[in-house]
């Protein structure tokens, strides 16, 4: 146990150093790409709490990112709030929305829950257009510009904090209850764990992360409109999660890298049909790594045990 803690700490420190010096070696354009990786990482951390740890599938996490993104955008554009201060608020608003959604969603499991969350993500752009007075409708909202390096350090500081917070939460009895419900719901219930409480809580925590990621998207693109959070974003998040590994927080980095760079790479390989290349690579990766890249690492680890 303490050896794992030592390994995790060492890994975290090394990774933090790499992240800190990386901008010195890459162009400003690439710094923005890596800032996006940090943002997706935050979103995947949250999705991991929901799917990887508490076993609930969401195909609509882009909607909770959108709630966070619009919360920040409205506060910045309409109320002149400094953008950094809107980040925690965006997390809280989206987290509240997650709690509100998680409660009725308790009645849904598996595929039905996935479909319900998908419906939310599909409906969101229409909602954003309808409340034009706040959201700016299709024209969107224009925000403050920042340098790419500033965005890079902002998103990665938050990603680092998000990772630590995630580890902390999951190490408490709350995290243990999530895992218990995922591993055996009947045994968890008979051990005194309320599925309603913890499943809703997982939705809230997960949406909090999504809201923060959405806020970062708004701040880094300095603009939001209904297409900033398309339905494909939700689907990419799920694939990124599976690739990074269900139930491994650091593994989510791998998923985040995939989400950011796969579309660019696919477009590079084939100008005509980038989606085909994307699809082929995704299927290939999922087939090769059932349980995700982190699942593979865990296999390697456990084979070393006595």
């Amino acid at each position, binding site marked *: 146990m303490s050896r794992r803690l030592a390994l995790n700490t060492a890994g975290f420190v090394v990774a933090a150093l790499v992240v800190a010096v990386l901008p010195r070696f890459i162009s400003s354009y690439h710094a923005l790409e890596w800032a996006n990786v940090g943002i997706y990482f935050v979103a995947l951390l949250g999705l991991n709490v929901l799917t990887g740890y508490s076993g609930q599938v969401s195909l609509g996490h882009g909607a909770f990112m959108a709630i966070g993104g619009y919360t920040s955008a409205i506060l910045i554009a309409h109320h002149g709030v400094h953008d950094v201060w809107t980040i925690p608020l965006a997390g809280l608003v989206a987290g509240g929305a997650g709690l509100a959604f998680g409660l009725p969603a308790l009645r849904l499991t598996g595929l039905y829950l996935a479909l319900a969350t998908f419906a939310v993500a599909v409906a969101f752009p229409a909602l954003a257009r309808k409340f034009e007075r706040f959201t700016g409708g299709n024209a969107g909202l224009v925000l403050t510009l920042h340098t790419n390096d500033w965005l890079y350090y902002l998103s990665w500081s938050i990603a680092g904090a998000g990772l630590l917070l995630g580890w902390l939460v999951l190490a408490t009895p709350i995290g243990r209850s999530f*895992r218990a419900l995922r*591993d055996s719901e009947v*045994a968890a219930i*008979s*051990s005194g764990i309320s599925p309603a409480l913890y499943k809703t809580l997982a939705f809230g925590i997960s949406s909090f992360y999504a809201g923060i990621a959405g806020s970062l998207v708004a701040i880094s693109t300095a603009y939001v409109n209904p297409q900033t959070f398309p339905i494909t974003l939700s689907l990419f998040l799920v694939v990124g999660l599976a690739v990074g590994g269900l139930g491994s927080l650091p593994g989510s980095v791998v998923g985040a890298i995939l989400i950011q760079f796969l579309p660019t790479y696919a477009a590079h390989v084939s100008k005509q049909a980038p989606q085909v290349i994307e699809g082929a690579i995704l299927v290939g990766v999922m087939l090769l790594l059932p349980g995700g890249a982190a699942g593979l690492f865990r296999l390697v680890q456990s084979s070393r045990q006595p």
Partner: protein
Amino acid sequence: MAALLEVENVSRRFGGIVALDGVSLDAGENEIVGLIGPNGAGKTTLFNVVTRLYRPDSGALRFAGRSLLRTPAHRIVRRGIARTFQNVELFDTMTVRENVRVGGRYGDEALEVVGLAPLAGRLAASLPHDTRKRVELARALASRPRIVLLDEPAGGLDHEEVERLATLIRRLRTELELAVLVVEHHMNLVMGVSDRVHVLSFGRRIASGTPAEVRNDPAVIEAYLGSAA
């Protein structure tokens, strides 16, 4: 003295199947009670109803004199009722210690009772079947319940392991002052440890009494022969 656990006239159906048909039975404080019956008799359903995982269609459930019907499933353990499952339900991604700590505050003490303290750091998924069954029992004990419901604790165990299980069940009563309600197909085990035995067949209670009484009851013999034929 009133019984600790009272099941009164409980029925439960699943579609056309009547899994429990007006079943009444009880278990006293510090008593070891066996619950036997052919496959599909309703034994596991009874456990699921008592632990509130299933709602009874009718009937009453009382524990220590108070109804269980207003207690949600996740509060049952706080009322003093803990259980194990026929198909071992462990938290496979957790260690043995984490498993029993989910069970309650006295997890470490429970590991000592079942003799698993040396394996506390092992991953539950990595353990052999009989050890997994003991982890499950320890998890049930971790809340310091007043009664444990054991669903086929001897399932899949070899002769020696069953002997050890019998000793362990007796110790639960003497050392931890628990009541035990045990579902088993292993007749030597139930008859050996139980003070009283209830017999279910097709959702009805067809007999109750001491092991000797039940063993010689014509209705019981009939139920078992009928199911074997």
